């Protein structure tokens, strides 16, 4: 199994990780990794080098924005999906300028999210292989 088939979700809400982890039970070839804190998530990202990282913008201690900045430096090729529970025009613009691949507002449509994750994984894979 190559590194491109790894998905990391950094989200302080355990049950959101749970629901997505359950869905990824369907995709045996994709490794779904969950992390409840940004710091642990960065460590996991370094170790696992996932193809797609799902990042919650609102987290204690280290904000999603800071985590994103650091992760982008660490993993320039990784695709990023940012999830947020609160619409704030300014933050959204700032995040989008930092270069992300998708932006989801909670509560998210799980099917759409999964489709997005998989399509990003495929694109990445195609680019890599192509």
């Amino acid at each position, binding site marked *: 199994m190559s590194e491109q088939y790894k998905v990391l979700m950094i989200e302080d*809400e355990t*049950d*959101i990780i*749970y*629901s*997505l982890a*359950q*869905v990824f*039970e*369907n995709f045996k070839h994709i490794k779904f990794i969950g992390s409840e804190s940004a710091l642990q998530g960065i460590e996991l990202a370094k170790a696992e080098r996932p193809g797609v990282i799902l990042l919650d913008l*609102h*987290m*204690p*201690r*280290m*904000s999603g924005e800071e985590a994103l900045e650091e992760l982008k430096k660490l993993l320039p090729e990784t695709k990023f999906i940012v999830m947020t*529970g*609160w*619409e*704030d025009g300014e933050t959204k613009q700032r995040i989008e300028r930092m270069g992300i691949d998708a932006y989801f*507002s*909670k*509560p*998210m*449509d*799980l*099917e759409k999210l*999964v489709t997005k994750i998989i399509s990003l994984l495929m694109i990445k894979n195609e680019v890599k292989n192509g």
Partner: protein
Amino acid sequence: MVLAPNAEAGLLADRISLMGIVFIPTAFLHFTLAFIGQIKKRIKLIYFAYGMSILFAIANWTPLMAVSVSRKHFVPLFTDPGNLYPFFLMFFASIMTLSLVFSWKAYRDAKTQSKKITNFYFLLAAFLATAGGSGNFFAPYDIFLPFMIPYGSYGVVLYAIITGYLIVKRRFLDIELIVKKTLVFTGLFGMAMAVIAIVTELSNGIVAKFFPVSSLVERAFSILAALLLYEPTKEFLVRATDRYLFQKKEDVRVILNKLSQNIITILDIEKVGTTILETLKDSLRLESGIILIQDEDGKTYEIMDSFGIQNKRERFLKDGSFIRCLLESDKILNLEDSQQKESLPSAIRGPLESWGAVICIPLFIHRELIGLLVLGKKKSDQEFSDDELDCFPAVAGQVAIALSNARLYHILMRSQADFAQQAKMAAIGTLSAGISHEIKNPLQVIRGIVEMLRFNKKSGLYKEYTKEQYEELISEALVRVLDAVNRATGVIDRLSSFAKKPKELKTELFSIEQAMDDALNMVTYEFEQNQIVVKKDYAANLPKVLADQHAIEEVFFNLLINARHAMVEKGIISVQVRQQGNEIEALLRDTGPGIPKENFEKIFDPFFTTKDTSRNPDDNAIKGSGLGLFLVREIVKRYSGRIVLESEVGKGTTFHIFLPASPMPS
């Protein structure tokens, strides 16, 4: 003694009359001092004079005063002076002279024209009496002063007449009240009788000819007419007696007492103004009065309340000539003092005269002119007495304090109401991001789990599961969904309970840790965003406190928000709850810049703020309103608690909130 049948009876009569005479100078002195209002000032002299008079009175029954009586060449029998008699004459002369000197001084120093006139007549009368009466004292030495002997004594009579007039007309002694009441009663009684008689007569004579009515109806009608006329007649009589006979005398100290009792506890500003004017109107019997008060912006002065004037809408600019001139003169103005009146600039005289005002009392608080108390003339046309003028500075002080208190209270209440509203909006603003996050996360959980189940079912994932595995999965998913629903409900409950604060003083038993946790929940998001770490340390098994949980939550919320603003970004807030004797102590320590010692007291003052409100106007309104800590202290005080502040510049600040522990088992 003069006409006594023999020398023995003459001597007895002489001694009896001397008994009175030895008290003449003392009584005269006492009366003079009473009239010019200096009894207290010269009380020792009065005691001395009485002592002397008593000594002479005792000596009078020995041959020291009057040895015998004998014929003098103008009266049949008169005193033959004893050895003490010359000393008595000296005493008599010096006390009388002293009294005259006092009268003269009172005349010389009189401040108002009317006082001067009164004192002049009094001096004249006293002089006539002294001069006239003293002629008698030359008689024992057989010295005859032509004219003085038979007529001199009329001076004494004249004295009695003049002082009697002065007493009645120039308000002295209390007889006026008795006379006035009698006059008013007589007038009213007479009026009622007259009305009844006239109406009865008229109806008998004229009306009955056309309308046959019974005498009972006539009587009833007459009495009704008399009753209807009663009030206006009474008003008229009281006014007339006031105006033409007396001026109601009221001890100025009574006025002051009345005023302070009436106004000091009133916090409604309009009522304070009305009460001040009513009290002064009634006790001084004024025709008009006005209170002007400074606007809240401090730029204009306008009439707050008045009576007896026409134009009630006048306003004066702080920079206008009227107020400026008043500030320059900086004292109570008395237009009855013609000298002072002429020296006043027309900018002041104009408005005062247009109101018919005679006294203008500026009201100062901390050298700031907060208002004006303007008094018109008295209904009796009398001028203000020295006593009254002397009490005006004290009146000014009390009125200024009462008005300023009421005004502050008024501003405070309004801003507190405003603030409560602002605080709600601000808190909702501050919280909305957090709330939205707090609610959308549980919603995400619910949606995620529901969609996950549907997705996995569709994909056939669960076909691989055993029945037990599947049931376990479903029940686990349902628990998580329910948990999320509860969490979202909790967030909404917190928000709504914060938004609708109960207005009345509510008390309930609750644990302070709970209140602290709820307050912390409200700021969690804000703190996380600014990387502020909260360290909690709650003692176990703490007794509960008796207070309003929402109010105490508000206290903690305000302190937490203050701490967060103090630290700006990154920092640690330590929160501790523990028991200290009979109190529960909640402690909030931040790692902010600290508060300088000189601001320790000030930070609790309303409107005191060190937060820069201009820098970020969009920031929530709590920030920089200067009411946060004031409200905190008010709430804590309300529940018999106390606040201890500990702070060191550069290290941080700690607030200790102490609330009485409930004696009931927790």
